[in-house]
């Protein structure tokens, strides 16, 4: 077991390293002028810029820069943003932004799981009846229609119908509702879809029939056997959800003016803010690898079958 975990961690580290080095090197291929905000560029001349770059160590060999970055990383220094938030320490940025996104992410994850499971149960309970159909239509719409479109309509119309604020205000609880729900729409559909599918699969298994033969009522069988078994494979996805918590949603954060991490990467790449890009990419890579890893661990934790094959 320990050996397995260790080798998994090692492999994950290699993945992170490759992703990071690749992105780091790619970023060094960009033109140097991108290191300056537009207005600064206009006002300075070539020599000044080169001086600045040289002072910042941005003209050194990429490998040297990588080495320096890693050195500072281990000292807990993530560097400062170059163009998007000139001179602002990236750690400050993340410290400001992650809590906002994480708060939404967490709220939406809880909403997603609770409502998703509720919807999934509803669909199984009323299989092939109205509940199932309504749920199917919901899932279909959420999954098939580009999210941008319905998120936009929700912001414009739903906020009007319910008199909810158009954008997010930290001190107004009502302004949390729409973004949280929007964030969780996808995962509600996701959890409902898979819970339903898993439950229907489980329903056809022999042990379910055996439980029925034992004389348990259908409801009891659903509760005691089918539901529990169907939820177990769902747990794999929870850590992946965790990823979204921190990385945030570009569309929703933009629409509701949430000062989170969602748009950070895009704007950093567009503004060619190398320092910021590399930190965020590193963060994402670590998060996703950790997410997958945690997912496997979590399942091993909740599923007695897996403990067995590995514990032997």
């Amino acid at each position, binding site marked *: 077991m320990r050996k397995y975990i260790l080798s998994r961690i090692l492999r994950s580290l290699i993945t992170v390293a490759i992703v990071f080095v690749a992105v780091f090197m790619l970023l060094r291929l960009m*033109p140097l*002028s*991108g*290191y*300056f*905000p*537009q*207005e*600064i*560029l*206009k*006002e*300075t001349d070539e*020599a*000044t810029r*080169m*001086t*600045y770059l040289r*002072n910042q160590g941005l003209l050194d060999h990429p490998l040297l820069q990588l080495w320096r970055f890693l050195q500072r990383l281990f000292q807990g220094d993530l560097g*400062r*943003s170059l163009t*998007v*938030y*000139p*001179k*602002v*320490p990236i750690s*400050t*940025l993340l410290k*400001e*932004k992650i809590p*906002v996104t994480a708060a939404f992410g967490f709220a939406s994850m809880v909403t997603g799981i*609770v*409502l998703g499971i*509720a919807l999934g*149960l*509803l669909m199984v309970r009323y299989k092939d009846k109205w509940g199932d159909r309504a749920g199917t239509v919901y899932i279909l719409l959420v999954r098939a229609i580009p999210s941008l479109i319905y998120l936009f309509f929700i912001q*414009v119309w739903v906020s009007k119908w*319910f*008199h*909810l*604020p*158009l*954008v*997010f*205000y*930290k001190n*107004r*609880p*009502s302004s949390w*509702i729409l973004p949280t729900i929007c964030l969780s729409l996808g995962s509600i559909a996701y959890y409902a879809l898979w819970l339903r599918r898993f439950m229907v699969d489980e329903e056809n298994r022999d042990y379910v029939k055996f439980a029925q033969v034992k004389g348990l009522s259908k409801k009891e069988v659903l509760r005691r056997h089918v539901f529990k078994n169907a939820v177990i494979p769902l747990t794999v996805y929870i850590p992946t959800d965790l990823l979204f918590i921190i990385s945030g949603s570009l569309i929703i954060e*933009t*629409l509701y*003016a*949430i*000062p989170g991490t969602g748009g950070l990467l895009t*704007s950093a790449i*567009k*503004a*060619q803010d190398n320092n910021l890009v590399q930190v965020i990419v590193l963060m994402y890579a670590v998060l996703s690898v950790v997410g997958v890893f945690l997912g496997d661990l979590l399942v091993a934790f909740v599923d007695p079958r897996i403990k067995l094959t590995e514990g032997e």
Partner: protein
Amino acid sequence: MKRLPALLLAMVMVFSLAACQSQKPPASNTPGNDPNKPVSEQSADDILSTKEYLKTYKTSFSSSYASFNYFSTAYATVRSIVANCIDGLVEPDIYGVYIPSLAEKWEHNEDQTVWTFYIRKGVNWVDHTGADTGLSVTAQDFVDGIRYIGDPLNGAYSLRVVRNLIEGLYDYYWDLDDIDCGDKTDMTREQALARFNDMVGVKALDEYTVQYTLTSSAPYFLSLIESSMLLLPVEYDYAVAQGEDFAVDNEHMLYCGGYYISHFERDKAITLSKNPLYWDLEHITVDTVEYQMIPEGTTSLEMFKRGEVDSVSVEAEEYLTLQGTEWANGLIPTERSLSTNYLWLDFAGANPEFNTFVQNENFRKALQYSLDRVAIASLRDPVNPQRILRGTINAEDCIYDSNGMDYTDYPVLKAIKETDYNNPKLARQYMETAVSELCDEEGNIKGISATQVDYLPVGTFSVDAKLPVTVIYVGTDDENEIVMAQLMKSMVEEAIGKDLIDFQIVCFSGWTYGTVADPLNYDIYFDSLSTGYADPSGLLTRMTTDGAENVGCYTVPEYDELVDRAMEADTFEKRLAYFAEAEAYLCNGAYVIPFISSLRGYYMTNCMPFTSPLTLYGNSKFKGTLVMDRPLTLAEYNTLDAAYELARAEALKAD
């Protein structure tokens, strides 16, 4: 399973409870006979006297920003915030007349090259909690402001004018820069820094007297103080101690203006609070100013309707849809813009077809005459697009000679103002002439061969060295700009003809000056420049062949000579006349194509107009702003405007 409906019910209840109050539309009192200029029945005094005003002003910003460092920031929002937080030496009053601010009085020598300011005593810096730091604003703080911007490492924004105007600053700056580059080795950086007091023409004569020595006569120096943030004071020791952190957020800076930044939430909200120690506290009418981020322009009108912001600019399309609604009579036309929109032509680009043609005046004129400026302006103001047109580089109604004559009414410029550039026939003629000069009979462009144009990262394009001429227009991905570019494309291709010109639009989302304009990765691009202060030199000297704003890299020695002649003129009138000639030369030769002003149509506001300083060149201030609980109507505005114009004329006369 029964819990689910209950949960849903609960959520619906939360929704409905969360309902918040929305804005009342403007009062519908539009009895004026002339629908174009409704006037309120009340007199201006009535309107002003019967109001209870709010203590909070809510506004918005749309792009994220990083730093409050007023010396280096390029962001308009930050500049407007800081303008309220750091006072300058002087400020305009509501009529635009300069009145004392941190300087209680000032004087200058005969030729306006030495200006002396006497600083107000007892003004202290406060921190982000509004607490007194015990540090007072002295003459040295103004000297240190120049010291700060004189160091290239501090990356001052828009430094050129000030650097060239203040005696010795140019040499001081470049010495430091040479040292940094390693070009100058005969002294250390410390030695160079130590020479500041001897070299640079800014001195603290005593604790409360500061004197600026200028390289040339500057009758516009006060307007430069208003517009340029580089002449603001700084508590140098504090700033140096903060290092890179200086002004990255509200906690790492000091304030001496009417407000301090009490709350800062990146990309989300900023709150300004009234500075309790402010010297002019009685004129601070609004206690707090709340800025919130609105990412997309379209929602801001909705926000205004819902009472989330106190003023909003109304785009052309919004203007049309608001007609006939209860909001219609709150739409107030924007008054003036000193900023002009241009098409820049790339004289040194990699596209051989365009490069061959752009050197030809007929081709440039063909472009100039193919634009239907009214149609373009209709995108901004569908009702009265005429007021947005502008053919000159400098704005009208901002530079006057001592006789009160508008600079743009000097004959050469007046002729440009009166020219109708929408002339497709003429455009086609010019183009045909250009073609006959530059192409052989088969339509091959002489002297060049087919090639691949490398405008990366914008893109690569293949040109065949044959007609039609390939023109690459590079713009940003801003929705309004895209629409404008598409309109222009259709105009140009229609006027000149698709057989002669192939106008390609590239909307480059990573558009920055550094990726497109500076490396000349375009044939045509759209930009704006504004008249910085009450003198044409501000723009025109920077547009010379080696000027900073000559981004298209044209070479026009005639223009350079005209500018030099203007700069050497002995009277202000002559100076203006010479400058007008220079400006006309550039426009008539279509080296650049100014076509409209940057006016954005209309706005709606809850504020009483004409109560805060008239900041023509600098950033607006909240001093004196009166916030109502409902939008201002156009009728009220017109009434107040009439009264204001009278008062202003009087005030200007008195000045």
